[in-house]
């Protein structure tokens, strides 16, 4: 066997340096990262990275910060398995391998000038936060902005400080709901779907952007359709098992399309008939 070094390989990673790291939830750790050598990460909200620790593994992780936030980017990782546990051991100054950005993000050009309704369930807030902050940073490019956030319990809420600022802004409608309340919880209790009927929206001007656990989509989308939001104005971001991130390895395939390459952001009208999507 001859060994050759490939100058270009889609599986090679860049080096990322962790600027800071902290726990922001029971199982979630936040990372602020820069690419080494001043390399810029040119991405759209909704795109993701393949994050690697050599010797341990690699996993898809959404970029949680907005592209308007320059100088560094942010990731939030929940500890569930091999790689994510290893990531939780990383601290400021440590390195990670980065491939990406991968996939198709939210279509900012299409969204601009319209009303936005964000619906986030659980960890869905991690990728959605990128677009929310983008919209807030470029507030004047958009119409009405509403955010609906659902979570299991109040302790599971991430980005508490940021949620507060969103809540305090007069140009953002923010509501939050939990499945199960804690004694000192004063907010809403119930399923996220129960918030939708109360939202005041102009269905023709509104784009709904939904990210959450698999079971959430069916019910949320049904509510949105009841509100007469056109199917073509609903965007979702889907999670699938991914290995290569570039449309080869087959793990993320849903029907004929690849979640990593054709998604993870999809226009609902385009995939509603894909029997493996929801």
């Amino acid at each position: 066997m001859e060994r050759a070094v490939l100058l270009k390989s889609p599986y090679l990673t860049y080096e990322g340096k962790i600027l800071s790291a902290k726990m922001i939830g029971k199982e979630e750790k936040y990372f602020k990262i820069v690419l080494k050598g001043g390399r810029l990460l040119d991405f759209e909200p909704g795109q993701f990275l393949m994050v690697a620790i050599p010797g341990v593994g690699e996993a898809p992780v959404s970029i949680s910060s907005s592209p308007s936030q320059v100088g560094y980017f942010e990731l939030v990782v929940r500890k569930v398995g091999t790689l994510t546990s290893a990531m939780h051991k990383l601290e400021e100054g440590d390195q990670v391998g980065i491939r990406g950005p991968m996939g198709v993000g939210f279509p900012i050009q299409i969204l601009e000038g319209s009303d936005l309704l964000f619906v986030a369930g659980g960890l869905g807030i991690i990728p959605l936060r990128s677009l929310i902050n983008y919209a807030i940073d470029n507030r004047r490019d958009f119409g009405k902005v509403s955010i609906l956030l659902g979570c299991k319990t109040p302790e599971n809420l991430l980005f508490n400080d940021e949620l507060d600022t969103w809540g305090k802004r007069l140009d953002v409608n923010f509501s939050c709901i939990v499945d199960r309340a804690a004694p000192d919880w004063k907010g809403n209790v119930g399923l996220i779907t129960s918030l939708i009927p109360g939202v005041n929206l102009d269905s023709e001007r509104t784009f709904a952007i939904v990210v959450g656990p698999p079971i959430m989509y069916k019910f949320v989308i049904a509510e949105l359709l009841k509100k007469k939001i056109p199917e073509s104005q609903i965007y979702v971001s889907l999670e699938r098992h991914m290995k290569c991130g570039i449309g080869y390895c087959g793990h993320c395939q849903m029907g004929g399309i690849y979640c990593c390459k054709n998604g993870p952001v999809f226009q609902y009208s385009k995939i509603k008939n894909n029997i493996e999507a929801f």
Partner: protein
Amino acid sequence: MEQYVVLNKNDFDDFIDILAKLQKLVAPVKRGEKNYAFDEVTSSSEIALKYIPTILPPKKYFLPQNETLVEYNKKQNKREGTLYSEPLTIFGVHTCDLAGIQCLNIVFSDRPMDANYNLRKKKILVIGLECNEYCDEYASCALMHNQYPNGGYDLFFTELENKFIIHVNTLSGEELIKKMGMIKPASEEDMKGLEQLRIKKRKIFKPEIDISYSNLHPLFEKSFNNDVWNDIGNRCLSCTNCTNVCPTCYCYDMGYDTDLDMNSGSLIRKWDSCQSRPFATVAGGESFRPERAARQRHRYMRKFNYAFDKYNRYFCTGCGRCSRTCMAKINLKETINTLIKTVKAEK
């Protein structure tokens, strides 16, 4: 360049000897009672010229089961895309497997380019071999239009009574022929012999299923909710054999492996199968194809529906391996026949 030449059977031994000396040579050999496998050979006596599709298709040489993609060394802060490859000649590839290689070629020339596949491929010489008879009842090469050679090789051998007619298809093939002293140009008579064989074959190789090539795609498009998936789903054991042996299945897993020094190591690509449950399971345990029925449907759809949409080509070569290997006797031809019957009835 395109030309036909002739090798006398008496010279076949010498031909293989020379071939084996030039670079590593693999060819079908007998494995166990009823099986064959591509394996390294050094003389013609080891080669099974009459063989039914090998346990694994030649894809194992193009897309190795375990392949190093990246090597790293933490202390030296080094990461390198790596390719391990060697010059190789594959002798005796049937037309169905040639089609399989073509399918993989199409897939891996998508963007971003998979350098490992494409560079390795450049080092492989492919010598095809025509089937003059049917392999067995599992084959459906005629339905899939793969019973005749259709490119994808450097040289192609057709066995006539006492000689092989060789079609030279590429420059590499031509160079190889030049190194062989015993090769002669094909005469008109030889060509007539070849033509006659093909005519004879036309009578033997008839579409194995009563459906036209072009109707397969619409058939599968209409079959998402067919009961047949539940039926085979109930029988399937998820042993993953059907996908591993398929010449056009290329799904893979990737994982890092570290050396014992905990410093250096590599990123390895391994074959993976959509028939196993973990394949589409995400953190939290949610599986997107939890039922075997859905996994089986996915396998079929990838062959007859999705690939056709994307590449305008079926990703089934008709080699019959999946049916042959399946211990639950899930049979591709039967499945398609059931679909034909039930989809018609639905209308």
